[in-house]
């Protein structure tokens, strides 16, 4: 009964029905699951990273763990997964079948190798099978199979450039994405190496090396395999701010197409990823947690946002926030004061407590009326009180000296 949502767009010459892609991960590892994901309405898929025949993939279980609170159990999801146990002989068949069943969807595949010959063989065979896009995993935090054992490929500038070149050489007109890690000293240098290597784009980024937790009674790490555990790759809402920074830094400094990945959990996150430079957004933890049905809210929320904002295409928002992202020393220096929206205040006193013990002792507390009073002399405008106000009753009033214009900083949640 409603008009069909049109979120179609071009990505590296491929038509996408919408910008929401299933990333190379468990939801794209089994044929039937991948099939169901595409059928549910996701715009495209990148099949879980494959390798050449004979490569052993020693997966260990349990592989998942998480952290969060009781009401929101998964804020961060960890895995000690490796690449797919299915090798290129199986994956080339799947690419062919999926392309036949879903000719309108982007069917991509992720690859990982060690030698030049392996990388290029993988590319040739996928190309022959009709793949739309090739993603190269340079950043699996666990059990890297790069040239240097124990290190991610994307942590070496030289290796990144060299392998990107091998892959693109074999791929020719098929677009190539290099999936990098934020775990480097300078992400811009890595992105430049990708570009020098000739790849078409960057997937920014991947899970982040982490340790999910320790059982405080047995001192065993999570996930625990007979009492022993390893570092996990962290995904989910916890890493969204890190991914945003990664995308933004690449987009501001290197002219290359970006596919956003890592921590997007809803359409709002997707808008943010795109606003800092991603052309589409990959998802994994969201469908793993709540299923492929989550695509419905992603599409509808995103479409309403675009029309409310007056945009015509998803691509209209790509990079919109970039001109506003500066280094700290380039920022203006307004005189800032906390301001209370009295009708919203519920009188919890948290702002008083935060300012008294962690700010500038700039709030007086009327314990009779349960209202905070901001001392304009002492308030430096740090915005700590605004962060912890449970009802968003505090905003920051900013003024530039010698000017009449006033600016308010409020965070919309």
């Amino acid at each position: 009964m409603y008009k069909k949502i049109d979120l179609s767009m071009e990505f590296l010459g491929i038509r996408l029905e919408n910008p929401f892609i299933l990333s190379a991960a468990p939801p794209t590892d089994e044929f039937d699951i991948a099939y169901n994901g595409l059928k549910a309405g996701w715009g495209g898929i990148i099949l879980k990273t494959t390798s050449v025949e004979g490569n052993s993939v020693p997966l260990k279980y349990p592989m998942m763990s998480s952290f969060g609170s009781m009401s929101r159990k998964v804020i961060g999801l960890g895995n000690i997964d490796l690449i797919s146990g299915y090798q290129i002989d199986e994956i080339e068949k799947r690419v062919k079948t999926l392309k036949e069943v879903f000719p309108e969807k982007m069917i991509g595949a992720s690859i990982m190798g060690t030698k030049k010959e392996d990388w290029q063989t993988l590319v040739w065979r996928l190309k022959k099978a009709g793949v739309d896009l090739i993603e190269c995993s340079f950043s699996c935090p666990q059990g890297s199979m790069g040239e240097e054992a124990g290190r991610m490929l994307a942590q070496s500038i030289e290796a990144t450039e060299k392998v990107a070149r091998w892959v693109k050489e074999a791929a020719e007109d098929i677009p190539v994405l290099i999936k990098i890690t934020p775990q480097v000293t300078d992400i811009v240098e890595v992105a430049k190496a990708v570009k020098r290597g000739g790849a078409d784009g960057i997937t920014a980024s991947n899970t982040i090396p982490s340790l999910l937790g320790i059982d405080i009674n047995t001192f065993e790490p999570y996930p625990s395999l007979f009492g022993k555990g390893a570092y996990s790759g962290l995904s989910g809402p916890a890493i969204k701010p890190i991914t945003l920074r990664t995308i933004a830094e690449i987009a501001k400094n290197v002219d290359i197409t970006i596919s956003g990945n890592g921590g997007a959990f809803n359409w709002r996150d997707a808008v943010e990823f795109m606003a800092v430079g991603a052309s589409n957004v990959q998802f994994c933890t969201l469908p793993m947690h709540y299923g492929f049905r989550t695509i419905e809210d992603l599409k509808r929320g995103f479409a309403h946002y675009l029309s409310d904002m007056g945009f015509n295409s998803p691509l209209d928002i790509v990079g919109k926030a970039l001109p506003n992202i500066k280094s700290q020393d380039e920022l203006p220096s307004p005189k800032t004061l906390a301001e209370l929206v009295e009708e919203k205040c519920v009188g919890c006193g948290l702002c008083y407590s935060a300012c008294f013990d962690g700010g500038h002792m700039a709030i007086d507390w009327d314990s009779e009326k349960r209202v905070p009073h901001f001392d304009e002399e002492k308030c430096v405008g740090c915005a700590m009180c605004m962060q912890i106000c449970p009802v968003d009753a505090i905003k920051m009033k900013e003024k530039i000296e010698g000017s009449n214009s006033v600016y308010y900083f409020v965070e919309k949640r």
Partner: protein
Amino acid sequence: MEEIEKTFSKEQAAIEAERCLYCYDAPCETACPAHVPIAEFIQSIRTDNLKGAREIIQEAHPLIETCGRICPEESFCQSACTRIKMDTPIKIRELHRYITDNTDPSENLELVPATKGKIAIVGGGPAGLACARELRRFGYQPVVFEKKQLGGVPANEISATRLPEEIEKKEARFVHHNFVSEVKDTTIKSLEELDKEYSAIFISTGLSGELNLDIPGNNLDGVYYSRELLKRAKSGAKLPHFKRVGVIGGGNVAVEVASVLKIEDPLRDVEVIYRRGTKELKAFKKEIEEAIEVGVTFQFLAIPKKIEGDKRVEGLVVTRAHLGEKDPSGRRNPVPIPNSDFVIPLDAVVIAIGQKADVYFPKVERDAKGLVKVSDGLMANVKGVFAGGDIVRGASTVVECVADGKKAAQNIAKYLEGGKNV
């Protein structure tokens, strides 16, 4: 008998605790008469530090397992919860009970030696026990005079469906064992009966009498008083065999006795007969809901006029009422509707219209209702004699009595130590 209300699961508690804002200078704590540090114990639930949470509550209140079950939270902490301004208040009593149900009383106690004087505490209910515990913490030797089981109304009258016996026994025993120097199994009715060895006296006898309903037929067979039935039920004795019973009254005791009667025999028809309307009921919301759940019915706007019967109760004549002006308590008064009498056939009537003080301690000044008159510091007209709980307030709650006990202890110490801070 099984408890009606179930304790929170870990998941329920965690999610409810997460809703708490952890207010600074938390208004729930101010609203709690015993000033239990609510925001602090909820913070400890959040970190799954239940032993720590228990210690926080136990520090402020001696009868926490009892209060976790029967406190009318909507009148105190929850009515002040900041979240009311956002959505709904935190379920504080349930969180409190979640802690007490999942921990043992903290034995991690360190007390100063009991080197100070003996204090006589007459009555071992919530006020008396709270006062004794506080005095012992200050170094006094509290001696409690109590003929019945320690614990007062909760221990001796409140139904096991709301407060299992072993729970309040355990709790009273814990206070007895750790904080009371001696319990004397005697009833004290005048100050003279107490030796000079006591430096001060705290009267916390509660309300032992029951108000009579002054209508014809109130002496027939089959007319009972609510508290004697509650005590019999609590002691495990069978209640008299009757099939259609009317409970007259609208307070907690009326609702409680009705529930007890219905639970004991579900085939028994139990109706609460009340002069005013639903909104005027004095009983706590939770108790009313539980009574309706077990099958108690309510006859509102019915003024008892006469109990009918030859030797035994055969029925109750009531006059239909409508609601008129508000009385000083803010509740609307029932006004009889002319020629509207009707008969409710009954084989038993339970009178539950309120309690009164038995007038002991002749030298201690009382008001018209027989309640002890006290100063702000809870001292009666006789120097060194303090009083608190229901004997001062009239029928009240456990938490208010505990608050009185604590306050009296502080003032006793102040009185004995010449205004020094204690």
